[in-house]
């Protein structure tokens, strides 16, 4: 594999559009008159503003000097230079300038030399700066007749990729290059530990999509031939982490869950899976989800360690309309009520009336037929189900920061026969009014759910049994304006269950939750200080057991990788040992060269009061290895209070689009110096 000696890169095809677009104002500031100077207009070339001019009739030429600004006629380009030579005035006019800057819509170019005529311009060497990319080329030719660009020895840097190529040409928004090296590492491909070398490259820059021909993946000294052709796009290049995560189940059911994020494996098809290692006695829970779709139809397959669900949907009522879906559920396991269910559902969803601030109505209708089986404590239940449901969401307009809404729903399911004691029905209806209010820093959300049920399903809740409900949720929070970097929030949350409870005496309070929390955080001691205090008070009011009662507080100071803090929790109703924990924790960063690590330790010192030693309640370690190809992060943290976290990822920072970085020395190339421009003197100079 030959190495592109004089690198060339993909030059943005946007440059073409820029050049051919009209309007100097869009390209850059128009040329302004110079004191004591004048203007020269050359038909077919443009208008030049100069400080000094000399025409030479013998050479059929003119020289402009002392600072020149040239607006190209019809191209939208504005050229600035210290001097400018115009030749062949009687024929095909030519323009020659050195140390130039060229402004094009979206691009700022500097070049050591520019030669232009009616057919195009050649810049050498050239540096381009744009919003989305920077590039440099030993020679850049702009062909105004064919509307194409050609470059030699080019290097292109975008937010996600470095590309070097020996030759490149451009047409529209596409780029073709030969002898190209590419890498997502933030360094020249020759210096990257991971890169791709290709005989030919075709690229679309917006959005980025690259097709490689004759590609070879190079990792250090290892080389693998890539499929021919091989395509990468913006999504795959921009992936900043490995495609899976390890984190506690947010629902708190499945313990630590490893999730492989859904990936697009081909057009319209996605694949993803996750696995949870159960906290408690539950077995590992593995889920695999496959999804494929075309147009409005889709097929979803969800497989889990204890169940399988398949659904075909022939229409997707994303914005309203009819849908037909067919689904299967196969669920089982020792700790779950096994379910086998096949359903065919016809649905209709009304298009919600749009508009913010105004009233809104959304309707849902559905009818289904299903054959289901479930094994319950009383034995196997098998039979058909026929059902229909209707729902409506009514949202009122927001008045004075208050927006009311109510959700109405009703449904009925008929179980013809063969299930339990004979034909039966389950009908239910619910009303769920809510109020959301925003008054400056204050926020109030109130909701009530009332559900009535007539009859009962012979199946369990896993399948379709519903129960009555009468409960109210209320949350109130205030978030005062931040002062001197400090911000905080105070929250009050409660839930009241109005239904009778077998464990609750008649007329007793049914307070499920009463919680008050205060949080504040801001700069302190050259770092950040976070404070939290929380009180769970339901147990003081509700006589039922297991109502939460605790007083807790935490303080944490962080700076860089440092993390120091303490937390405590106290149960005032506990008869024995009311201190649940008094924990101190710390994380201390260390770094050596490209390596960094940070151990974490949390100790519960409450046992000291009882004469015992401290107890380790949390530990962890974070490792990071930094290279130009990104930061590889590996770590874990186990803490009784915050759960388990495992980190394994590759963090890619967006490349800094600084044109000076293009000058990175390489074995075969020349060193480039790009500095600040001054007046009409361009910013770039080259060194041999």
């Amino acid at each position, binding site marked *: 594999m030959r190495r592109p000696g004089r690198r060339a890169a993909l030059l943005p095809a946007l440059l073409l559009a820029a050049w051919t677009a009209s309007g100097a104002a869009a390209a850059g500031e128009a040329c302004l008159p110079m004191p004591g*100077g004048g203007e*020269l207009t*050359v038909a077919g070339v443009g208008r030049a503003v100069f*400080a000094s*001019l000399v*025409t030479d*009739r013998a050479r*059929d030429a*003119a020289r402009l000097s002392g600072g020149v600004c040239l607006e190209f006629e019809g191209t939208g380009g504005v050229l600035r230079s210290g001097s400018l030579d115009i030749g062949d005035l*009687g024929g095909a006019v030519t323009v020659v300038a050195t140390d130039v800057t060229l402004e094009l819509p979206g691009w700022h170019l500097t070049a050591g030399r520019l030669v232009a005529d009616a057919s195009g311009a050649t810049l050498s060497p050239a540096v381009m700066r744009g919003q989305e990319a920077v590039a440099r080329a030993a020679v850049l030719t702009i062909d105004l007749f064919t509307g194409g660009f050609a470059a030699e020895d080019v290097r292109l840097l975008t937010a996600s990729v470095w590309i070097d190529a020996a030759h490149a040409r451009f047409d529209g928004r596409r780029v073709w290059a030969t002898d190209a090296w590419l890498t997502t590492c933030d360094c020249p491909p020759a210096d990257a530990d991971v890169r791709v070398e290709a005989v030919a490259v075709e690229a679309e820059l917006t959005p980025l999509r690259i097709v490689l021909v004759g590609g070879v993946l190079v990792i250090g000294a290892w080389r693998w031939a890539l499929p021919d052709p091989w395509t990468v796009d913006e999504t795959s290049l921009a992936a900043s982490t490995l495609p899976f995560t390890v984190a506690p189940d947010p629902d708190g059911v499945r313990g630590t869950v490893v999730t492989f994020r859904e990936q697009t494996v081909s057009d319209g098809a996605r694949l993803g899976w996750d696995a949870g290692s159960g906290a408690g006695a539950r077995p590992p829970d593995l889920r695999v989800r496959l999804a494929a779709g075309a147009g409005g139809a889709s097929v979803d397959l969800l497989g889990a360690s204890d169940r399988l669900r398949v659904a075909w949907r022939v229409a997707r009522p994303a914005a309203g309309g009819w849908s037909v879906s067919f689904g299967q559920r196969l669920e089982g396991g020792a700790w779950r009520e096994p379910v086998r269910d096949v359903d065919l559902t016809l649905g209709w969803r009304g298009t919600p009336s749009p508009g913010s601030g105004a009233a809104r109505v959304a309707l849902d209708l559905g009818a289904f037929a299903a054959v289901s089986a479930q094994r319950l404590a009383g034995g196997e239940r098998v039979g058909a189900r026929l059902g229909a449901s209707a729902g409506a969401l009514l949202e009122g307009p927001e008045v004075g920061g208050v927006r009311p809404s109510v959700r109405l729903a009703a449904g009925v399911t008929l179980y013809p026969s063969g299930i339990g004691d004979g034909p039966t029905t389950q009908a239910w209806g619910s009303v769920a009014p809510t109020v959301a209010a925003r008054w400056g820093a204050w926020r109030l959300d109130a909701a009530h759910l009332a559900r009535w049920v007539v009859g009962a399903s012979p199946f369990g809740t896993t399948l379709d049994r519903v129960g009555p409900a009468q409960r109210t949720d209320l949350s109130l929070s205030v978030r005062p304006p931040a002062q001197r970097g400090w911000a905080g929030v105070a929250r009050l949350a409660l839930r009241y269950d109005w239904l009778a409870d077998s464990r609750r005496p008649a007329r007793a309070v049914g307070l499920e939750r009463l919680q008050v929390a205060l949080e504040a955080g801001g700069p302190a001691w050259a770092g950040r200080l976070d404070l939290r205090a929380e009180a769970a008070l339901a147990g003081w009011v509700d006589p039922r057991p297991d109502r939460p009662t605790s007083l807790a507080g935490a303080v944490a100071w962080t700076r860089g990788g440092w993390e120091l803090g303490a937390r405590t929790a106290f149960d005032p109703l506990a008869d024995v040992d009311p201190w649940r924990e008094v924990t101190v924790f710390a994380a201390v960063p260390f770094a050596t060269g490209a390596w960094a690590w940070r151990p974490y330790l949390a100790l519960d010192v409450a046992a000291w009061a009882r004469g015992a030693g401290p107890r380790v309640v949390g530990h962890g370690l974070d490792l990071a290895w930094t290279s130009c190809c990104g930061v590889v992060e590996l770590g874990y943290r186990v803490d009784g209070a915050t759960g388990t976290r495992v980190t394994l990822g590759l963090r890619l920072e967006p490349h800094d689009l600084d044109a000076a970085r293009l000058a990175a020395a390489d074995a075969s190339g020349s060193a480039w110096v790009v500095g600040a421009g001054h007046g009409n003197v361009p910013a770039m100079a080259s060194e041999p």
Partner: protein
Amino acid sequence: MKATAPSPSSVSGYPGCVVGPQRCRAGSLRLLVWLLAALLAWPAWGQAGVAELSVTAYGRQRLDLETGRTVLEDGGELVDRTSGVRIAAAWIAYLDGIEVVARGVTLDGDVGRVEAGEIAVDLLGGRLQATGGVRWLRPGVDVTGRSLWFDVGAGVAGLVGGIEATAPEVSAAEVWIELASGRVLLVGPYRYADGRLVLTGGADAALQLDVVEVAGVPGYDARSAVDPDWAETVARLRGEPWAAAGE
């Protein structure tokens, strides 16, 4: 501005071109130099005096015995017997060998026709001043300005005030011409068009045109940097009272 394009040879061999022989056209500036040179060489303005002139009065002719001036109150004609230059005016006053003043003047000669509101010739000082609107006409040439004057001793002529000329198209606040060298100075705001080139400058700008001849075709080179001696000469003449009076 009237655009004309006679062949170079048809305009006394002095087309006014900056560059590019194929773009050369008749040069009104060059012709103006020729005209002024002709005027300068006219014996009446030189040593010969008015005696070389043929004077024809259209009507009353009055001789002021105190001053020695002869006044053709109803106008008349002055014709140089040598060059054939003819001045017809609605009013003429001349003092033999001293001065000639004429109003409503039309000058005809080989160089074409010059029209002026008034001409004052200082025969002793070697200065001519044409005011009240000056226009020079000949086939392919049409130059207008507010006033024209030249200093015989300095060999410099100036046209001042809204100068408009064709071929090459020139407009300027002032045009100065050095007869010996042919140097021309356009004082801004100016506009100079020649073929594909159009040069413009603001009130603080100036453009020097130098006569060149390429492949036998005369024309002009233009440059924004004015020769120091030329700039000094123009600055001196612009500051003289008689020049200022003509503006």
